[in-house]
């Protein structure tokens, strides 16, 4: 048994967009799978997940099916891996409506066409008859979003939904997600490795490292005022569009997973501000200014981090 998530607490309000940002192995995808109760068989889980007052971990299979239709919906990085290649787009879009919600076939198809139009696909009737391989990646990701929204869930779990797409398509898909969330009041948990993308579309951003949240604050203030050394280092390491193109302030070492780190601060071995005390005992997530941070030196280094992000963050 190896821990992949270690002490994670998270709240998402109705209609709120929360970004969950981390590098590989940080546990961000596992977090969304836990919310959907889609953890690998045999996973040892402790803690609670509560959706609308209901305990997700104790739902019966009927409750779970309803929860996964009307409660939450998921979209993933690779839409091609999450559609059945031998079923038409129409079957894929209407399956949940017809099986879980008993919507008649014609009505389900009408709703599907309407939702496709909302995600920018105008010729919905024709698309319903097509197979996944006949659509480009960006188009298929829109179909995924339409499918996720058709059952009118309250929470959308979006796991790197634009990572495999071209940048111009990414901008388009993000705009669609942003618009639909505001119009329909759907809450979104947006999982990504891209801090700037998360900050641009989410109200609040959580930064994960080695299976825990190390920082959480309003997206609007994150870029200018990171609280955790890891967040500041991530912001600085990203190459900027406006130069100066000198040496990038890379983070030494490589990202850790929860099972690779000890009791103390997981980032300590890559952190320029570490002290022996940092790894001596577990660090708690605590309030600082308007955010939360898991760093015992957060007050001491706050000025330095702000300076780093100001230098790096002149409009990219």
């Amino acid at each position, binding site marked *: 048994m190896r821990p992949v998530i270690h002490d994670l607490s998270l709240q998402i309000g109705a209609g709120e967009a929360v970004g969950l940002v981390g*590098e*590989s192995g940080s546990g961000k995808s596992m977090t969304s799978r836990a919310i959907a109760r889609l953890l690998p068989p045999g996973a040892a889980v402790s803690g609670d997940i509560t959706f609308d007052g209901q305990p997700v971990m104790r739902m019966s299979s009927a409750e779970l099916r309803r929860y996964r239709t009307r409660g939450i919906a998921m979209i993933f990085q690779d839409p091609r891996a999450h559609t059945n290649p031998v079923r038409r787009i129409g079957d894929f879009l209407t399956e949940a409506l017809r099986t879980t919600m008993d919507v008649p076939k014609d009505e389900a198809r009408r709703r599907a066409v309407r939702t496709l139009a909302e995600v*920018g696909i105008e010729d919905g009737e024709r698309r319903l008859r097509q197979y996944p*391989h*006949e*659509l*480009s*990646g*960006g*188009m298929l990701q829109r179909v995924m979003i339409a499918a996720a929204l058709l059952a009118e869930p309250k929470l959308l779990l979006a796991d790197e939904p634009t990572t495999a797409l*071209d*940048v*111009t*398509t*990414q*901008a*388009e898909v*993000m*705009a*669609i997600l*942003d*618009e639909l969330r505001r119009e329909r009041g759907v809450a979104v948990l947006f999982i990504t*490795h*891209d*801090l*700037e*993308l998360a*900050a*641009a*579309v989410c109200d609040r951003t959580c930064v994960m490292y080695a299976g825990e949240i190390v920082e959480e604050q309003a997206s609007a203030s994150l*870029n*200018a005022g990171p609280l955790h050394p890891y967040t500041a*280092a*991530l912001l600085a*390491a*990203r*190459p*900027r*569009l*406006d*130069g100066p*193109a000198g*040496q*990038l*302030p*890379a*983070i*030494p070492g*490589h*990202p850790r997973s929860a099972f690779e780190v000890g009791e103390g601060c997981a980032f300590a071995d*890559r952190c320029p501000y570490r002290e022996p005390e940092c790894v001596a005992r577990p660090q708690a997530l605590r309030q600082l200014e308007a955010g939360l941070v898991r760093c015992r030196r957060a007050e001491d280094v706050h000025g330095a981090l702000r300076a780093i992000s100001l230098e790096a*963050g002149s*409009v*990219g």
Partner: protein
Amino acid sequence: MADAVLEADRLRKVFRLRGHGGGDGEIVAVDDLSFALAEGESLAIVGESGSGKTTLARMLVGLERPTSGRITMAGRDRSTPARRTSERRRRGRETQIVFQDPYSSLDPRQTPASSIDEVLRLHFRLSRAACAARVAELAAQVGLDDRQMTALPRALSGGQRQRVAIARALAAEPRVLLLDEAVASLDVSIQAQILNLLADIRAATGISYVVISHDLGVVRQITDSTIVMQRGVAVERGTTADVLHRPQHPYTQLLRRSVPAPGWKPARRARPAPATEPRA
């Protein structure tokens, strides 16, 4: 151009589609593309899927044959396949490529030390001791330690594997290194390390880079000049600073606007794309 190490002259690549969707068709992947790469220069080829940038890379290393046009490397034509092994090896030595996915570009059963040694033995006549010394030198250059050099790829992280791929490419002492989305799949903190490494290597050896990328930040960081491609055609070119800061072509401007940055808000827009989208 006298000091050009690599030149492309009116390159064109057409793929024929037979009986696809009821009828024959043609796809012009690269159309009338010319450029010259100077010694020690770093040139970016920027574009999205379907822009022809990967087809261009494959032609430059000899994996695809241009339909028409010329590729000249150090004054010698290489637009037609090599007829002799010695010629093929010479071309291989002059141009090396690093691919996007380090998980699939390395042999899972070969250690980094052995895969670099293999390249050295193929291209150079070195004694066993000289070979070992050169392997150690390359390992040091890309920042790999002894344990990593004798481990199997599955025991290495993505960043370490990409360092192996770079060391293996450098082993042939190429004049041109093609980086085909070489940092695209790496974590941000690792990507910065590899970008710094590539900058250091160019400064130390005077090697030239052709950097194929869709990531404008990466392009800004490690290239001097940029060609923007859209559907096989170069729509804009110039110094990287100019192209990114004063983009002239609408497509370059769109690319530039699509990059998330502080204050960025994604906007729906009329796409400058054909009514029927190309299939992926």
